[in-house]
């Protein structure tokens, strides 16, 4: 993701340029100063402090008690943590691939100039504009047993609708379904990628191999691997942090039967319902390390499957 920055080495610069370079450097630091302050104040210091708090048993008033790795030990033994890890991992493993495939498929469909293209694009993007709270509420209405249109439609096809929000085997899938709705963002990102494929390459492929399948596997997919990577990383990171929908639907206990108990919900309730701030901080650090490792892993493997234009030049 980090592109090579234009290097300054080997620039044939005279003394005048050097002087100008120094002032340019000064300006550079100055321009980046607010952001560097933010990095330190809003990101770096809090990050370190979180690791510190995680070592303590925190009281609301009075001094914290240092308990070393105690919070992590407690996490290891906490069945709610394991339940939430199971739920969150299932959610991520299922929703991210489905979302990627659906979004890519939809983007390919959209990558076709017709009179209605603009209309379709608008529609698919609309869900993103809806506040998550409103979205969750509307979904509850849609899935209401008896009076909800989803069950009515399923019933018309002779299907027996499940208890969307009450059945522990189904509730997580309902959440996943909910997550697929704002698919438009990923779709349009893919669409951008598809439209960036140079015309010559795409048309040359049309001549060489008329079969669409070949084109997809050998030309289109490799060309948009950077976009796939981007969507995948963002998708996984955000699926680990699902909160609003899970809280609206499952409450703090992940009802029914802990089947919607997301990691973030456990973290939130530890901090604000059980007043166990140190524990919540420990959970946050674990989340951080997990996301970091996963991202590194993806980028590592990405080298072998992501194609960057202009590489190896």
């Amino acid at each position, binding site marked *: 993701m980090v592109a090579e920055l234009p290097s300054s080495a080997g620039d044939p610069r005279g003394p005048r340029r050097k002087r100008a370079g120094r*002032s340019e450097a000064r300006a550079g630091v100055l321009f980046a100063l607010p952001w560097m302050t933010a990095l330190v104040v809003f990101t770096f210091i809090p990050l370190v402090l979180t690791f510190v708090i995680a070592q303590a048993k925190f009281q609301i*008033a009075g001094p914290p008690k240092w308990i070393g790795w105690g919070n992590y030990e407690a996490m290891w033994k906490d069945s709610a943590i394991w339940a939430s890890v199971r739920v969150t991992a299932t959610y991520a493993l299922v929703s991210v691939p489905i979302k990627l495939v659906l979004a890519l498929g939809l983007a390919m469909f959209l990558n076709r100039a017709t009179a209605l293209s603009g209309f379709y694009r608008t529609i698919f993007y609309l869900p993103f504009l809806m506040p998550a709270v409103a979205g969750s509420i509307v979904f509850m209405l849609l899935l209401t047993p008896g009076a909800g249109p989803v069950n009515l439609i399923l019933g018309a096809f002779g299907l027996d609708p499940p208890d969307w929000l009450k059945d522990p085997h189904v509730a997580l899938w309902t959440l996943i379904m909910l997550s697929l709705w704002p698919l438009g963002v990923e779709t349009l990102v893919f669409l951008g990628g598809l439209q960036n494929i140079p015309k010559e390459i795409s048309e040359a492929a049309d001549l060489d191999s008329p079969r669409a399948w070949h084109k997809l596997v050998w030309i289109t997919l490799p060309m948009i691997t950077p976009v796939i990577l981007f969507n995948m990383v963002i998708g996984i990171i955000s699926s680990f942090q699902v909160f609003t929908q899970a809280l609206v639907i499952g409450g703090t206990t992940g009802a029914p039967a802990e089947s919607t108990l997301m990691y973030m919900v456990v973290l939130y309730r530890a901090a604000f319902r059980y007043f166990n701030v140190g524990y919540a901080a420990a959970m946050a650090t674990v989340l951080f390390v997990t996301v970091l490792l996963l991202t590194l892993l993806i980028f590592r493997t990405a080298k072998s499957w992501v194609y960057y234009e202009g590489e190896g030049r």
Partner: protein
Amino acid sequence: MAYPTFAKPETLNRRSFLLGTAATAAATMTLPGAAFAQAKGQLLLWLPGGSDLFCKVQTGMLTDWTAKHKELASAETVCGLGQDTAFNQALIGAITGGNPPDMSLLWDAPVSLGTQGAFLALDDMMAKSIINIDTWPGGLLASCQFKGKTYGLPVTAGIYSMWYNAEMFEAKGIKSDRASFPKTWVEMRALSKEFTVWDGDTLKVAGFMPHREAESLAIWSALNGGKLYDSANYKYTFDSEENIEMFNFFVDWMNEEYKGDINLVDRSGSFASGYANGTTGQPAAFRESRLAGLHSGSWLMGDIYDPAPNFTRWDLAPHPVGPSGSATVSGVWPNWFVIPANSLNPQAAFDYLTYLSTEGAVTWFENVPDIPTNSLVKLAPPKILVDHRGEEFAKETTAFYSEQAKIVTPMWDSPVQGFGNDQLKLAIEKIYTKAATPKDALAEAQVASQAELDRVLAG
């Protein structure tokens, strides 16, 4: 040409940069929510969620009271800071941040936060005031006390009892007076069958429902001679004999009368409470005369006419007693009043608390029917009942609740109330969906809650 001119605009642009920052900072000064600037002499009260009326009544009382106390410049009531966890979070944030309200109402037991040093212990101030420790029912005070310290007071409370539809009783030729209401669970279960009608997999009408709310489970446990939490010994007792027996009774009842499937019941309507189902929108079965009776708190009195039931004569009765129980008990969901540890005006806050628990509670009850709990209070019946059911019924009901307030079982008394409650909720769900036997589900909740309790007690 380039160099000399370079340096000068550089300083200029730094200045303009600073100017720009200052200008934007000034622009942001016009923010809507001004800080809760708090000064001595200004009394700030926080309220958790609640109806518009509740907010209005509370604001009015504080304003009137402050007007009579010249040493106080002004008072402010902040309503609707969110409910449950969201409210706790706001309050904790304010206390840790050092800008707490002077006093707050709380819908969660003060012990949990009190043991962590969030609230002022009121014992010294209480000893010198008219609302001393003897004026509060012990069962109620248990929710505020930990190791001999009192971290808040239950100024008013919703009191639980049985509610029933007298018209449905009479239609079946069943005596509808209070004295004839079932005295035991076995009798109630037998009576329930008289009403229950299934149409295929849809529950049309039901008698009574086995209990499944975690917050008020302590009452049912006590009715069966048990306990959920033993505050004297700091021990949870979720998986005691009595509690396992209780759930076995409930599950057996479910199987016999409700096809053993809680989901079928829930699909059929809102049978679990006197309110519409918050997630599915199904209207309350009790108000539609599809449920003969239920267990509910006194707050239902204030809410039952919105939306109005399709019958007139509802009535109240004491809880029936379980197979291993000996006497009926009642239970509460109090409105606790707390003073944050770093309140700027603790004495003024306590004076207001004194007013609120005595005179204020009367005004409160007249408008929003939460039952005053201090024994000094002389009650007048709530307006809403007088309007709908007449003076006599209103008086009689008020007297009934005053009696019930005397037999309240200790509840809300654990320092890890929220945690225990969530564990219990999960266990109840497992039991009713048959994911686990009562014994296993309760044992699991017991282990987790006891561990959390021990962790907190370790200090």
